[in-house]
């Protein structure tokens, strides 16, 4: 009998990808341009999607991606292999820059209000991301399924925080939820996602 075959194969594939990513970063440290191009080709499209979701402007998203990958080239030592995967580090870098940009901008409030409206009125918007592509293979489907598996109230705060760049206080203000509830829902949702995506109970 094949014990848990899907999970096992999935885990092996992800490990191989991760091993190759780490090798690429190591080569970037040695100033290998082809390794940099490979890393860029592999992750820049996902990075742009993330940045554009947060800043909602394509040209700003491209700037963020460019700055983030320039930072990777200039300081590949910023990646600590003991702290996790290359792709999470890269996306964390992009996310941090995008959120910083959004919060610096004067127009943030207006944009954030739109974001709340978007998420509330167009649950199908994120649901599109989550549901429509579920039958596609690969990591995207895994992450979308994990998000879809969350209770609505947990998914909402996580999506507002991560994909719309809102802080916990902004979410509390715009949803009318107590700050403590925003934090506790975030924790519960992230615990579930951590199990589903990283395989860590705690």
């Amino acid at each position, binding site marked *: 009998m094949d014990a848990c075959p899907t999970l096992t194969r999935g885990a092996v594939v992800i490990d191989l990808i991760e091993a190759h990513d780490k090798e690429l970063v190591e080569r970037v440290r040695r100033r290998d341009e082809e390794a*940099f191009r490979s890393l860029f080709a592999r992750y820049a*499209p996902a990075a742009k999607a993330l940045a554009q979701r947060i800043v909602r402007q394509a040209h700003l998203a491209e700037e963020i991606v460019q700055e983030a990958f320039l930072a990777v080239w200039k300081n590949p030592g910023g990646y600590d292999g003991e702290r996790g995967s290359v792709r999470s580090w890269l996306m964390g870098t992009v996310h941090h820059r995008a959120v910083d940009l959004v919060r610096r901008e004067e127009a943030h409030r207006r944009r954030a209000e739109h974001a709340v409206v978007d998420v509330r009125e167009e649950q199908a918007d994120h649901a599109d991301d989550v549901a429509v592509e579920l039958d596609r293979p690969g990591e995207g489907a895994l992450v979308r399924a994990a998000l879809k598996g969350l209770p609505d109230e947990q998914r909402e705060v996580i999506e507002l*925080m991560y994909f719309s760049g809102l*802080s916990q206080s902004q979410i509390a203000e715009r949803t009318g939820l107590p700050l403590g509830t925003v934090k506790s829902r975030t*924790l519960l949702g*992230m615990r579930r996602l*951590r199990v589903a995506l990283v395989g860590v109970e705690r």
Partner: protein
Amino acid sequence: MTLDHTLIEELLAVRSLGGLDGEDLETLERELTEHGACEECRQLRDGFDQTAGRLAFALEPLPVDPTMANRILSEAWGREAPAVDELAERRTGRWRRALAVAASFVVLIAGVAVLRDTVGVDLVALQRFLVLEGGEGSLALAYTPGERGIVVWGQDLPDPGAGNVYELWAFADGTPISQGCLEPSNGNLAAFLNAEIGDAQLMAVTVESAACPDSPTTVPVYTGELV
């Protein structure tokens, strides 16, 4: 006061998503400092950071300007100039490769000139020659500005994968226009495309599904700028 790990876990979860603000930011920093080299704190932080980083992949990837990687490297090298001999090696290497491709291409043009009547284009008279760079092997185009017809030649190209093909794009003002799909045979490619480069500033090749999509879905593996 030292928080227990459940409360630290809550603040780390919010921080990993970029949502921590106000007093909680300072509280978390202070408590982490007080916990010192706390293995449980480290595991909680890394676990949530890993999880948050994966969320980005829930989104559909978006095409990126195919020249961006080159721009990043140019900017970086501009600031930290490589050694002179390194630059010279790069230039000569590129020229050696271009000349090798050009020599082979001339042979190809001569060989396929007999196709003139079939395709309606005088292959020998093609005026421009473009070497595409980026991926393994050699890939080049020949065409005449303002006229239809692009000859594509490739050697030692990587297999695009089962069910995949190479797709040639002409980028005009950042907009990609498909020029056609190509399937190498044992790494070799010799094809005529009934397409016109027009006002394109950049030619690029991506790996696409055999359906040959109307817009690129992956980052180019070969690019060449048109003078």
